[in-house]
C-alpha cells in the first residue's frame, strides 16, 4: 500500500524521468547568437558571439576590429601637430579630451609648460567634452532598456554644449584645438556668460534624467543587481572611470594624479557607489555630469589672464625620451605612451584606451545572464567603438 509520501515520491521520480526523456528526445542543445556587428544596442560595429541555453548566456565573446584604423602605425609617420587630427577621432563624442594627454606628454618631453590661462581653458573644455559625452550615455541607457524618450532630450540638451565648444574652437565634434605649448586661440567675447547659462540647462537636464529614469521602478528592477563587478576584478582587468568608481574604488585621476591642469585649484568631489551593478554605473555617471557642471562654473569664475601659448619653436622637435600621461577621460583612463627619438614625429605611440579594458571584462561578467541583461550590462559599461578599435 502506498502512503501519501510514497505517492509524492513516485510522482517526483516519474516527473524527473519524463524530463530526462524529453531532453534526450528533443536534444535541446545550445544556440549560438551573434549580437552585432549591426545592431542598435552596440555603439558601433562590435560583434558579441553568445552561446545561449534558452535565454541564458553560457559564454559571450566580443570580437572587434571592424573599425580598426591603425592609429599607432599612422602616428609614427606624422609630425606631432599632425597626430592630433587623428587622435580627435578615437573617442568621437568627447573629442577634446582625447588630445589633452597626448599634448601633455609631448610637452613633458619638451620640458615646456603651457601658461596658466591655457591650462584653465583646457580644463574647462575637457569638462565640457565630458558633459557632452556622458549626457548622451544618460539618455542612451534608456534606449537600451526600451524607454525611447530620454535620448531625445539628451540630444537636444547636448547641442547647447556642442554650440559652446564650436564657439571657441570652430568644430562641434572634432575641435583639434590643443597645441603643444597651449591652445590655438583665446576664448571669444561673451563666451563665459553663455557657458554659465548652458551649465544651468545641463543641470536641469540631469534632474530630468533623474526623474525619468533613476526613479523609475522598472529601470531599477532591470538594473539593480545586474552585472555586478567586484572591486578586485575591476582592478585586475584595468577597468577605469565611472565603472571602477561604481564598484566602490575611490580613485579619480583628476584628483590623484593631476598632470598639470586646473583641477587642484577648485573644490569638487568624487562620486562612488558600493554596489558595482549596472544601476550603480548609471548613478555614478549622472552625479559626475552634475559635478562637471559645477566644476565648469567654478573654473569660469577664475580664469587667470595671460598668454594663451608658450614660446615654442615653429618647427617642433621633441627631444629623445619616453613619457606616459593619462587623464580621467569621460570613458575612463586614457593615456599615451610616447617614445621619441628627437625628431619631428613620435617613434612609437601606445594609445591606452579605456573602453578596451572595460570591454575585456565582458566574457567574465556575462556568464549565466539573460539576453536582455546582456544589453543592460553592455549599455552600462558604456564603450565607444573608436575607443576599443583605435
Amino acid at each position, binding site marked *: 500500500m502506498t502512503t501519501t509520501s510514497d505517492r509524492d515520491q513516485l510522482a517526483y521520480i516519474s516527473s524527473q524521468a519524463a524530463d530526462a526523456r524529453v531532453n534526450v528526445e528533443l536534444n535541446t542543445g545550445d544556440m549560438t547568437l551573434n549580437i552585432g556587428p549591426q545592431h542598435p544596442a552596440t555603439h558601433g560595429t562590435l560583434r558579441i558571439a553568445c552561446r545561449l541555453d534558452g535565454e541564458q548566456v553560457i559564454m559571450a565573446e566580443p570580437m572587434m576590429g571592424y573599425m580598426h584604423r591603425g592609429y599607432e602605425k599612422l602616428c609614427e609617420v606624422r609630425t606631432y601637430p599632425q597626430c592630433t587630427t587623428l587622435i580627435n577621432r578615437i573617442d568621437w563624442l568627447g573629442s577634446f579630451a582625447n588630445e589633452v594627454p597626448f599634448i601633455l606628454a609631448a610637452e613633458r618631453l619638451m620640458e615646456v*609648460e603651457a601658461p*596658466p590661462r591655457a591650462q584653465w581653458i583646457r580644463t574647462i573644455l575637457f569638462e565640457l567634452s565630458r558633459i557632452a559625452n556622458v549626457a548622451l550615455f544618460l539618455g542612451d541607457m534608456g534606449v537600451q532598456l526600451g524607454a525611447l524618450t530620454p535620448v531625445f532630450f539628451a540630444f537636444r540638451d547636448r547641442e547647447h554644449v556642442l554650440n559652446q565648444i564650436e564657439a571657441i574652437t570652430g568644430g562641434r565634434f572634432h575641435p583639434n584645438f590643443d597645441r603643444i605649448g597651449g591652445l590655438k586661440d583665446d576664448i571669444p567675447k561673451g563666451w563665459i556668460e553663455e557657458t554659465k547659462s548652458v551649465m544651468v540647462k545641463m543641470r536641469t537636464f540631469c534632474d530630468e534624467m533623474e526623474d525619468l529614469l533613476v526613479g523609475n521602478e522598472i529601470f531599477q528592477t532591470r538594473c539593480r543587481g545586474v552585472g555586478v563587478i567586484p572591486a578586485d576584478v575591476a582592478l*585586475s582587468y584595468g577597468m577605469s572611470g565611472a565603472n571602477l568608481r561604481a564598484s566602490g574604488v575611490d580613485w579619480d585621476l583628476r584628483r590623484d594624479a593631476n598632470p598639470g591642469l586646473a583641477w587642484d585649484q577648485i573644490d569638487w568631489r568624487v562620486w562612488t557607489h558600493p554596489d558595482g551593478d549596472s544601476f550603480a554605473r548609471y548613478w555614478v555617471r549622472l552625479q559626475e555630469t552634475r559635478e562637471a557642471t559645477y566644476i565648469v562654473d567654478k573654473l569660469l569664475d577664475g580664469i587667470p589672464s595671460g598668454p594663451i601659448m608658450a614660446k615654442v619653436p615653429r618647427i617642433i622637435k621633441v627631444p629623445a625620451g619616453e613619457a606616459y600621461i593619462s587623464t580621467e577621460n569621460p570613458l575612463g583612463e586614457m593615456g599615451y605612451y610616447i617614445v621619441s627619438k628627437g625628431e619631428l614625429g613620435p617613434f612609437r605611440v601606445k594609445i591606452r584606451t579605456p573602453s578596451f579594458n572595460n570591454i575585456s571584462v565582458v566574457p567574465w561578467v556575462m556568464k549565466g545572464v539573460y539576453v536582455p541583461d546582456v544589453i543592460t550590462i553592455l549599455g552600462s559599461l558604456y564603450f565607444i567603438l573608436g575607443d576599443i578599435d583605435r
Partner: protein
Amino acid sequence: MVSESAEETQLLPDDVREAMLESLSEALGDALVESHLRPHEDLWLRVRADRWQDVAQMAKSLGYTYFGFLSAIDWEIAPEGRYENTEFDGELEEEDSEPVVQSTSTGYAGGDTRFQVIVQLQSPTEHTAFHLKTDVGEDNSIDTLRDIYAGADWHEREIHEMFGIGFRGHPNLHPLYLPGEFEGHPLRKDFPLLARHVKPWPGVVDIEDIPEHLEAELEAQVMAAFEAAGGGE
C-alpha cells in the same frame, strides 16, 4: 602660479618615487637589471625576461593591483625612412636651424634586444604608478601575465598579432583586430605602411595661394570692413 610651483618641485627630490624605487628593488632583488627615474614624472624598471611572471606577482602583492596597459616597442629603425621626401618636408629641413638627428638610444632603461615589452601598473591606494620593461629574448616570446592580471589577456593578444611576440601559457592567442587571413605583423618597423606606398604623402597641398587678381580685391574688402567697424578699436 602653476609654473612657479612646478619649477620648485622640479628642484626638490622626488621622495615618493625614490621610496618606491627602494622598496621595489628590495623586493625584486636580482631580477632587476636597470632602473630609470625622472623626478616628479615617472619610474621605469627593467627586469629579466625569465623572471617576468614572478616580478608581476611581487608587484601585485606590493599593492600595485591596477593593470594599466601592456605594450611592446620595436627599436629597429624603419628601413624606408620616415618621410617621403615631399616638398613640405624639404622646406622644413631647410628652415630648420638644427637638422633632424635621430637619437640612437633605445629609451629609458635601455633595451638590448629589438623588442621590448612594457607594462604599466598603478596602486589605487597609494596613487603611484611605474613601468616594468623587459627585453624579449631570441625566441621572441615571454610568459603570459593573464593569470596575475586578468586584463593582460586582450593586451597580449593584440601585441601578439601586431608584433609577433609569443606569450607562453596564453590559451587563445588568436587575432583580436586583424582578419584571420592577414599575414605579417603590422606594427613592426619593417612592415611597410601600404597607404604611403599606394599614394605618396602629398604633404601640405590644400593651402593654395590666393590668385593675384583676387588678392587686391580681397584686401580692399577687408580694409573697408576694418574702417567701418571703427578702425583699430
